[in-house]
């Protein structure tokens, strides 16, 4: 097995792990961490696709690499918005759970 494939398998497992955390954890902060873990796995798969496409003297296909950079920045923006919403929810209700509307 080549090392890109190895990291590809690693990314596959990360997606599943993150998905599990997102479903199971009741705390929104843990869900946010889990979402970032899924993101890590997905980006890793892009990286593997890029590495496999190494050609023309480049170590990897630059297109998926650029897509990952865009994706990382978007994921950060998402995390920041989610954290801000969560903190606001906490300051307003004293609780940090999604089960507030009952």
């Amino acid at each position, binding site marked *: 097995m080549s090392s890109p494939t190895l*990291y590809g398998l690693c990314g596959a497992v990360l997606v599943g792990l993150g998905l599990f955390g997102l*479903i199971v954890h009741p705390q929104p902060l843990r869900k946010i*961490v889990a979402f970032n873990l899924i993101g890590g796995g997905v*980006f890793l798969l892009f990286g593997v696709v890029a590495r496999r496409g190494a050609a023309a003297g480049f170590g990897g296909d630059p297109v998926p690499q650029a897509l990952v950079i865009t994706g*990382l920045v978007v*994921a950060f923006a998402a995390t920041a918005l989610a954290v*801000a919403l969560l903190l606001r929810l906490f300051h307003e209700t004293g609780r940090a759970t999604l089960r507030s509307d009952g």
Partner: protein
Amino acid sequence: MAFDTGLAVLVLGVAVWTITARDTFAAVVGFVAFGLLLALVWVRLAAPDVALTEAAIGSGVTGGLLLGAHTHLRRTETAAAGELPGAALRLAAAVLCAMVSAGLAAIVLLLPEPAPTLAPQVAANIATTGLGNPVTAVLMAYRAVDTLLETVVLLLALLGIWSLAPDRVWGGFPGPHHDADPQGVLTFAAQLLVPVGILVGVHIFWVGSVAPGGEFQAATILAAMWILAAMVGLVDAPPVSRRWLRILLVAGPAVFFAIGLAGFAMAGAFLAYPPPYAKLLILTIEIPLTLSIAATLALLVAGPPERAPQR
């Protein structure tokens, strides 16, 4: 190969720890470590640009943001943990997620050989962009419209965060105020580190056109230096209603749009650069863009306005 195997196992180990740790603090610390290990993986995958971004944004700033959130939410931990779903549901979720992983793993093994790639096309056209770094060429030329919309996404997230402010503090200062301790070791260290960090940021920006680096990585480093200075109390965030701040935030995307639209006249298409001036135009976009992104990232971390503006 042995190194790669070890690294992959380590990444997965830390990931498992991040998901299964009882304590949220441990999970967040695990996530930061995960991000740093992932940056190493990116180096192994011959993607140094991504490695820099991952270390700076994926691990660094995101980690800081999550740690900050955790200090606020510490007290809610036990109450929320009580809502853990039952064992049957968890088992079902585990089976589902294992299936997803297995399916994805199979797909990875089934990817075609030789792999399709756009690398030759990127290389064939890179001369017209005047750039030496292929990733920057993709971000700023071939797929510039993605990058443009992405910077708008960042701004939009910031507006979303600001919109959470209660009306009475609208337009005020984001985040809590930190007092500087003029004699403190921390202040001293920060005073030393911030200028060095800014220098590093400028360097990373400058080399981005030919070597790994670029506006996002540089902006993150600049933002991190600003956040550090704010946490130590050396600077305070400006009130979000300040006109100059709004202009600083919007300047990057605005210049990007302006040069993009000028492309209609100069090169016959939106976001097209006439080849002799391509590098100059891209640099003209990148400078304000880096500053705008840095300001946006820093304010994303600072959060919604919390202190009313003095009127």
